[in-house]
C-alpha cells in the first residue's frame, strides 16, 4: 500500500494540458535567441511581461498559451497528458528573475550582465523544450537546502 507521509502532497490543484508549457518553452527559446542576437530592450521586456503573467497569474494565461490553445492544440491527436500548474509556474518565476536581471543589464549598459542573465533563461527554456526538463525538480530542493 501507499502512504503519504506529508499531507501537503495530497493537495488538489489545477491541472492543464502538459504540452502547453512545452510549446511555450519553444516560443520562449526563440524569443530569447532573438533577444540575445539583437540586445533589444523591447524583445527582453516583452519576454519579461510574458514570464510575469506566467508566474503571477499562471502559465495557462500567457500569450504563448493562448496561441497553443487556439492554433496548436486543435491539431494535436491522442490522449491529453495533464500536469499540475505549479511546476511550470515555478519555472516561469525563475524565468522572470532572469529576465529582470537581463533587462536591468541593458538599462544600466552592462551588456555582460544581460548576456549572462538572458543566457540562463535561454538554457532553461531550451532544456524544457528539447528535453522535457523539469526545472522545479532539479533546483527547488537545492535552493531549499541552501537555507
Amino acid at each position, binding site marked *: 500500500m501507499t502512504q503519504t*507521509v506529508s499531507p501537503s502532497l495530497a493537495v488538489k490543484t489545477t491541472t492543464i494540458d502538459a504540452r502547453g508549457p512545452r510549446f511555450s518553452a519553444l516560443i520562449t527559446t526563440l524569443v530569447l535567441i532573438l533577444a*540575445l542576437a539583437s540586445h533589444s530592450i523591447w524583445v527582453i521586456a516583452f519576454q519579461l511581461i510574458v514570464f510575469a503573467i506566467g508566474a503571477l497569474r499562471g502559465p495557462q494565461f500567457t500569450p504563448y498559451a493562448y496561441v497553443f490553445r487556439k492554433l496548436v492544440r486543435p491539431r494535436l491527436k491522442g490522449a491529453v497528458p495533464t*500536469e499540475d500548474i505549479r*511546476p511550470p509556474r515555478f519555472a516561469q518565476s525563475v524565468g522572470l528573475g532572469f529576465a529582470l536581471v537581463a533587462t536591468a543589464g541593458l538599462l544600466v549598459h552592462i551588456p*555582460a550582465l544581460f548576456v*549572462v542573465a538572458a543566457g540562463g533563461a*535561454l*538554457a532553461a527554456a531550451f532544456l524544457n523544450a528539447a528535453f522535457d526538463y523539469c526545472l522545479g525538480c*532539479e533546483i527547488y*530542493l537545492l535552493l531549499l537546502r541552501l537555507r
Partner: protein
Amino acid sequence: MELLALIGQTTRVKSLVPILVILAVATVYGLWYKASRGKIRVTGTSNSAPVAALTAEILGAPLGTRATLVQFSSAFCTPCRATRLLLESVVLNMPDVRHLDIDAEAHLDLVRRLNIHSTPTTLILDSRGVEVGRAIGAPSREQVLNSLAGIS
C-alpha cells in the same frame, strides 16, 4: 570581474557566440539528463561509512516486511505524480512491500542526511530498512519490478 569583461568584449559586437555556446552546453547537459533520469542505481555497500538503516521512526511510517519504496516529492515536480501513480500500482498486489511518498520540503533534515538533490528520488529499502538502490527521476515499471525481485 574578468569573466564579465571577457563576456562584455565578445558581446559588444552582438555576436551569436554566446547563443551557440549556451545551446551546445545545454544540449550536452540535456542528453546526460535524459540518460540518467529514471535509472535505478544499486547503492554501494562497500563504502567505508556503514549504511545506516532507516526506521519507521525516522520515516514517519511503518516499513514493508520485505521491502519499502521511499519516494521524495515536491510541489514543483511534474514527474513526481507519475512516479507516485506507478509505485502505487506496483505495490498494490504486494502486501509485503510498502510505498511511502514524502514531501521533501517538509523533511529537509532527512533530505540532507540521505543526500537527496532533486525530486522525485526513490530509495529502495530491504526488510531491514537498508538502502539497496535509488532512482533519481521517474523509474520504469520494469526497473522497479526487477529491483524488488532481487530483495528476499
